[in-house]
């Protein structure tokens, strides 16, 4: 009954209120003849701006303020929370791992996405291949984490391997590994899960860009005797460079925030922690809103430049191919 009421209020109430707002604001705009057309867009924008201010701008400012305060938000402590972000071994390990993720996840996803997009472009069953590669995008991170925990399942050497990865290693004559507990491979094992999930995203967008490369140029190059490799590196790749940058920056923004996979699969144990997981622990396990906010602010500052590149690219996309 309660949910039904809330649902009805959202479904009927919200559009009604918006409609009423616009109808009622019209006389307001007309109060100042001549200026009405100047005033009107701001009146119309006001609800969205108010929502952005309340749900985006205010929390950001509040987080920045909290990052300068003590664990319980009580006293002002200056930059000491930031000092801890950059000196505590746990945080340094997490920062280092985020760099690992940034490099290997972005490159891996981009390479596999591009490879599959280019190769599938030339086969008849393209749609089937792309659908298969894209499916992991539709799975929640938590579910993917659990699926891959089964994939990485470990049994001591000599036993029947029940985890797919170790079973394959077994068939090929290799030794089973505890992929998530072995410090030399666990970060890469987690990154592989991320790549598996996001390759579909890179592939779909890069594939669309590939289709937009003019057939005329490609044909002209072939007439001139260019090899397929030359065509790819000299023509196709430059043509889709803009899209590659867009995909790369989007991936970077996502990878800096990586949380779910690590939380579900290792919870940052054995040297696999990442910044977002550190932030969660500080906030919800240790109730230290100061350090958690400082970590969040550092994360925000890291993401902003990537976002600016991305938005610029996005704007230019209107008149540049790809």
């Amino acid at each position, binding site marked *: *009954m309660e949910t039904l009421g809330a649902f*009805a209020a959202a479904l009927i109430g919200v559009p*009604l*209120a918006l409609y009423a707002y616009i*109808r009622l604001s019209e006389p307001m705009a007309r109060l100042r003849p001549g200026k009405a057309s100047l005033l009107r867009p701001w009146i119309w924008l006001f609800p969205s701006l108010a929502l952005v201010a309340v749900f985006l701008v205010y929390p950001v400012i509040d987080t920045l303020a909290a990052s300068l305060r003590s664990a319980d938000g009580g006293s002002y402590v200056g930059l000491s929370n930031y000092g801890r972000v950059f000196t505590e071994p746990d945080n340094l390990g997490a920062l280092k791992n985020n760099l690992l993720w940034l490099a290997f996840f972005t490159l891996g996803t981009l390479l596999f996405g591009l490879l599959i997009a280019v190769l599938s472009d030339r086969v008849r069953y393209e749609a089937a291949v792309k659908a298969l590669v894209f499916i992991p995008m539709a799975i929640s991170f938590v579910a993917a984490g659990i699926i891959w925990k089964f994939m990485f399942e*470990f049994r001591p050497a000599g036993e029947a391997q029940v985890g797919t990865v170790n079973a394959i290693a077994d068939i090929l004559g290799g030794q089973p590994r*505890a992929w998530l*507990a072995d410090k030399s491979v666990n970060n890469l094992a987690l990154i592989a899960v991320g790549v598996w999930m996001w390759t579909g995203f890179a592939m779909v967008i890069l594939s669309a860009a590939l289709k937009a490369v003019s057939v005329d140029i490609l044909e002209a190059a072939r007439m001139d005797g260019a090899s397929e490799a030359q065509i790819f590196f000299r023509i196709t790749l430059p043509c889709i460079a803009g899209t590659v940058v867009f995909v790369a920056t989007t991936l970077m923004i996502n990878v800096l925030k990586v949380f779910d996979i690590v939380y579900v699969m290792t919870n940052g*144990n054995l040297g696999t922690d990442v910044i977002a997981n550190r932030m969660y622990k500080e906030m919800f396990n*240790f109730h230290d809103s100061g350090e958690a906010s400082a970590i969040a602010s550092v994360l925000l500052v890291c993401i902003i430049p990537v976002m600016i590149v991305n938005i610029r690219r996005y704007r230019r996309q209107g008149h540049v191919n790809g």
Partner: protein
Amino acid sequence: MKKFLALLLACAILSFISCNQSQSAKAKDSVTVLGVWGGQEAEAFAAMTKVFTERTGIPIQFEATRDIDAVLTTRVQAGNPPDVVILPNPGKLYELAGAGKLVDLSKILDMKEFDKNYASGWKDLGTVKGKLYGLFVKAAIKGLVWYSPKALKDGGYSVPSTWDEMLSTSKKIMASGKAPWSVGIESGSASGWVATDWLENIFLRLNGPAAYKNWYEGDLAWTSPEMKEAWERFGEIVAEPGMAYGGAAYINSTNFGNAPAPLFQKPPKAYFHMQASFIQSFILDSFPGLKPAEDFDFSAFPAIDSAYEKAVEGGADIVAAFSSSAKVKSFMNYLASAEAQSFLAAGTGALATNRNLSLVFYPDALTKRAAEILNKSEIVVFDASDMMPSEMNAAFWKGCVDFVASPSSIDSILENLDKVRLAAYKK
């Protein structure tokens, strides 16, 4: 047109408010209970409260949440606490009691009856500054050693009762080319807690309950020789090659629920497994054909110092009250009774804290024996890691995982834990 729209809007808002109100009216004559119980536990609780409601006419409104910390904090701050709360560990109880939010249970419980029915250990654990705030219910014994009687008989091994016997039996098993122990400490975001149970049981049997209390209260340094000895003894199990099935890789990557499995494979891959009484349900889930007490059994954790061999580590959920109204009073007295606890024992196989609960209510012979051990034990201590501040507890879990991965870093792990101790207990 405008009038019509306004009317519609008003109707939508009114219906929204009215359905909220009907909800709160219902809550008025009932006792509201907030807790973490779900599934089997919630069913047993419902069966238990049904009897209470039939008898007294007081309805019980149970609200379950897995995120009790956040929900309870918010409701207490908003001045809208439940009448009764069921907490999963004592940390929150002490916090609420310290803040003066809880009702002194000695004012509402029949204390003569209480003292007759409860071991003084449970009473002490629920007492803060001389006042009783927590009623412990639904207990489990931690640190039992599980085994397959048949496998032991086939191998010609006996159940060890002391640490030294355990080591010599283990050596014999290793000599036959098998692993004596199966250990698995993976548990998602709580990985490592199984190892904290190991360390707690070792520490308790080495140093006794007083030192144990100093430890979880933050007065004992992690770098102290007593503490290091406990870790080194744990290392005799997890760091010794061949001692634990699959070595560190298996220990750190195996979920605690799957860890008993090697004991029941044919032929067995390991012979002993340390876990709380609740692991029985996991064993029966994986191997439904096994019979408790026949195909699998447990014995007490091996004794180290004979002075503390009767010590038992337990875990339990805790009931506390925010209101001392007549209906809450009658409900709390019911909860403390053997009758109410029989529902939990029969429905979930959990152990009752009320020691006058007849053993016939337990679903099988093993649970019955666990209950007997709990009732007869002279020293009951609570899971130490659960009593620590959350930051300390989390660091303890993580330290255990790191120790299993590289036992030689024991000193740096303990130093790091001590740094966390100095910071965590100040808050």
